[in-house]
């Protein structure tokens, strides 16, 4: 192992225990010294980092995460149980009559995708919120074609939107997407087209700040997210009608 390779591995992990690395370390006094120095540094870093301790009582708080549910279950005896059974029947009948019962629910992968979408939007919001310049229709289509594999048809309604940001994005691993941003009435609206496995059903994106939808959309997914209370239906229709996959 030459010096450069040794140095790379020593800095990346001075506690590596492979026979090859240890033999290389013993090849010269200089290497032994470097390794000792890096190992000493690691000990100091670990000691400093580990000097942080959790506040007293945190473990108890964490363990009490679902105690209310448990105590309610434990107290469900006698009359309360009858009430609970009756309530369950009412709930079951209500659910059976509800159209939502027949709608597929988002899968675990869909929910993970939902979280990834929000992380991405938060990551980008500082960039696009400040943006004020209109992006040309040609530029938007260049980004859409390059990043997502599609484009907007020549559509007057699309051209009327004030699109101020267009860029590639990598929300989902191993897939590319295009993120365009337009001005809405409450703030910026993100429209993201990702070429990946479509989600199992249309479902809401929601957290304390943003709201929107993830929609299975041909070769991938269409995501529309705006500030809470932003009316997004009109945008959804315009975008869905105008976008065309080319891959």
């Amino acid at each position, binding site marked *: 192992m030459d010096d450069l390779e040794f140095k790379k591995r020593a800095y*990346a992990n001075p506690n590596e225990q492979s026979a090859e690395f240890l033999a290389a370390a013993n090849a010269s006094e200089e290497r032994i010294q470097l390794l000792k120095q890096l190992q000493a540094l690691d000990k100091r870093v670990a000691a400093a980092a580990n000097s942080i301790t959790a506040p007293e009582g945190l473990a108890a708080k964490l363990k009490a995460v679902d105690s209310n549910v448990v105590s309610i279950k434990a107290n469900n005896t006698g009359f309360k149980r009858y009430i609970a059974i009756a309530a369950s029947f009412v709930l079951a009948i209500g659910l059976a009559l509800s159209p939502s019962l027949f709608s597929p629910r988002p899968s675990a992968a869909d929910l993970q995708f939902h979280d990834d979408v929000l992380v991405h939007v938060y990551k980008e919001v500082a960039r696009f919120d400040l943006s004020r310049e209109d992006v040309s229709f040609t530029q938007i289509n260049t980004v859409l074609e390059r990043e997502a594999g599609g484009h907007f048809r020549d559509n007057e309604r699309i051209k009327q939107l004030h699109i101020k940001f267009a860029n590639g994005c990598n929300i989902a691993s191993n897939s590319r997407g295009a993120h365009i941003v337009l001005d809405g009435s409450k703030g910026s609206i993100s429209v993201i087209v990702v070429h990946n496995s479509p989600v199992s059903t249309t479902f809401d994106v929601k957290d304390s700040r943003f709201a929107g939808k993830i929609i299975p959309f041909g070769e991938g997914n269409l995501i529309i997210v705006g500030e809470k209370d932003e009316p997004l239906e009109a945008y959804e229709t315009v975008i869905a009608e105008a976008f065309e996959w080319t891959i």
Partner: protein
Amino acid sequence: MSETPVFDDSAKRQRYQLIVDTLYQDVYRYAYWLCKNGALAEDLVQETFLRAWRSLDSLQNDKAAKAWLFTILRRENARLYERYRPDIVDIEDQTIADSFDNEPDQRMDRKLLHDAIESLDKDYREPLLLQVVGGFSGKEIAEILDLNNNTVMTRLFRARGKLKHVFFPDGEPDETLDEPQYE
């Protein structure tokens, strides 16, 4: 820790409590270094364990619990705080003063280390702490951070290079540190 699938609530609860006991200090520590504030770290850890409780059944092997919790924690941090919390207090001096080392020299050294670790760019600080504090391998760090292994190795290399320069300034300058070594 058990690797038995969970069938009832009490078994689930027992399993969860064991995970809390074993790992809450590590998770808190990581949260603290991630957001650099005690109160936020505590909130973050509570959110993390709440999510972990709800989806405990998806954890197949308790040996993977630490990496799983760290991944949840990073995601929660990004979702809740990373981009839009006000940039409040940095690593608090109070914590260092309250630490186990009462000797002034040790406290100074620790303060210097805290400052040095904190001054590392997050891209370098995270993999270093995962390796040194979390005890994760390069491959595991790559999975937690969603990076490839070579990028992790490069970041570890650079993180140590920067810290070494702070603590051993008399050492010969290392001309290889600025070059991308793995990517």
